[in-house]
């Protein structure tokens, strides 16, 4: 499937989308760019900790609501810039959880149960401050409350437990290293929460560095993380997580991310960035040509390390 077809087929205005990856690694950037190009609106996004793809979707005006634990890019941006502006301007609705809670919520969704229990967030404002308005709570796929506390039902002693609601979005977007022609998925490096995110959604779209024969992935099935029949669409997009990283394939593009942080601070510069890097580009191949072979080689992973040692990162 092409990027265009994947977005046209699986993402509508108002879709609920869970996005895989984490902060500055394996953000499904190529498909995020395509969502922006197709000018999707009113998306409801679920992430634990996310960075570049989330920030662009918010900045481009595609997002109406967000459930998150963290929006930042580590040293490249301690808080995602367009996210920060959107919250401060009241342009989006947001609901804060913790990473552990979001992980458990995806996990509950993947198991088909309505909630999961944890002791995290006891005593915090995450427990007592609801971000969503009461009328939002009545909307499609939105939990009737943020979370709730109960006592351990298996003990007579006083033991508090927090219950967090499952997430079952319309679509999950994951960027992996390898997918077979039939759909078996292999993620290298950290799998993060991508397996749970992939399984909690109604539809699963995987973008990948390489499509390979099913027989190739079956030589080492221990390394595979999702069976082929769960995958609804496969799109091959080499360097599809750029400017974020992809273990064994390429490092983050530190120069691009540093440039982006400065540009994102200014509304006009950010609009120009979108024109230049997203709207003005018609295909992923054109995007890679714009990044340039020199830069792609600079960040290319050294196979002995899985990243690019000595990469200029300042």
């Amino acid at each position: 499937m092409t990027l265009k077809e994947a977005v046209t087929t699986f993402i509508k205005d108002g879709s609920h989308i869970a996005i895989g990856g984490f902060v500055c690694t394996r953000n499904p950037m190529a498909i995020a760019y395509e969502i922006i190009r197709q000018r999707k609106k009113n998306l409801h996004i679920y992430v634990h900790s996310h960075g570049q793809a989330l920030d662009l979707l918010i900045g481009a005006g595609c997002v109406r609501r967000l459930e998150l634990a963290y929006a930042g890019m580590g040293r490249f941006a301690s808080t995602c810039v367009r996210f920060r502006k959107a919250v401060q301007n009241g342009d989006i609705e947001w609901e804060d959880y913790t990473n552990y809670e979001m992980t458990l919520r995806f996990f509950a969704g993947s198991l088909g149960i309505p909630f999961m229990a944890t002791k995290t967030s006891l005593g915090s404002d995450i427990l007592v401050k609801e971000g969503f308005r009461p009328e939002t709570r009545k909307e499609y796929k939105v939990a009737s409350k943020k979370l709730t506390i109960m006592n351990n039902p298996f003990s007579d002693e006083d033991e508090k437990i927090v219950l967090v609601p499952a997430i079952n979005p319309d679509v999950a977007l994951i960027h992996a290293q390898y997918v077979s022609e039939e759909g078996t998925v292999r993620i290298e490096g950290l799998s993060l929460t991508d397996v749970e995110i992939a399984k909690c959604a109604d539809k699963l779209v995987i973008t990948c560095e390489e499509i390979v024969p099913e027989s190739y992935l079956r030589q080492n099935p221990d390394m595979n993380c999702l069976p082929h029949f769960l995958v609804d669409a496969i799109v091959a997009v080499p360097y599809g997580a750029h400017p974020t990283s992809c273990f064994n394939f390429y490092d983050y593009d530190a120069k691009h991310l540093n440039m982006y942080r400065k540009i994102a601070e200014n509304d006009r510069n950010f609009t120009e960035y979108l024109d230049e890097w997203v709207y003005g580009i018609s295909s992923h191949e054109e995007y890679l040509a714009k990044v340039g072979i020199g830069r792609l080689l600079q960040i290319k992973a050294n196979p002995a390390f899985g990243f690019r040692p000595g990469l200029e990162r300042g």
Partner: protein
Amino acid sequence: MALDPVWRGDEREMLEYNPREIMAITAGRMVKNGDVIFCGTGLAQIAATVAKKMYAPESIIFFETGGIDAELPELPLSVSDLRIMYRTSVNAGLLESFSILSHRKVHSKAFLGAAQIDRFGNLNSTCMGDYWHPSVRFSGSGGACDAACLAAEVIIFMEHEKRRFVNKVDYLTSPGWLSGADAREKAGLHRGGPTAVVTNLGVMRFDEKTKEMYLSEYHSGVTPRQIQDTTGFEVDISRAVRSKPITEEELRVLREDVDPQKLII
């Protein structure tokens, strides 16, 4: 630059370092062999690496994203940096990582930073002002609240400024001792809590009974009174002692081995 007199031969010379360097070294000294460190990036990463190289080679660094006991040939710039996935004991995911953070067999020690802290060590990394109409929005909890709730111990980094040490945090992202005394236990958190706040001016700790912050150590070139004046609430300074000076060797390891590219320091 702070100045710290050290003995070099017979000559008394001044050793220069910046606030981040003294914070990293002070926190690094708090790590013990056997500690399993829940590590963020930035200063936390530097402190953990200093510790592993100098004081606690048997300590273990892990990241919430699932990189467990990474070799870290280069400094990672986020907890999802590819450098934390290289030659680990286990490359896993967040669920596995949180099971280690909260494991009863593990002395998990978390290093956390924040925008604001109150006198009971509660932290804010979510926003300034009202939650629904914030004047400044930050990244949000990420795994910070999880570590604050579930780790066996928490060590906090803060730049010592009045606007950061506040009477009440604007948003309580990560629980410390809540309202003090046994409030944390009553809220349902049965272990953990912050034991130290490492700042560029000294080290604050928490009273055993009241759980209120007090000044435990002050760095050279700083007086306890100055620290009180830089803190937005009343602090007991009567128990304060001068901190152990930084050594040349500590600075050398930090600058040459831990952060040679000067990415954080």
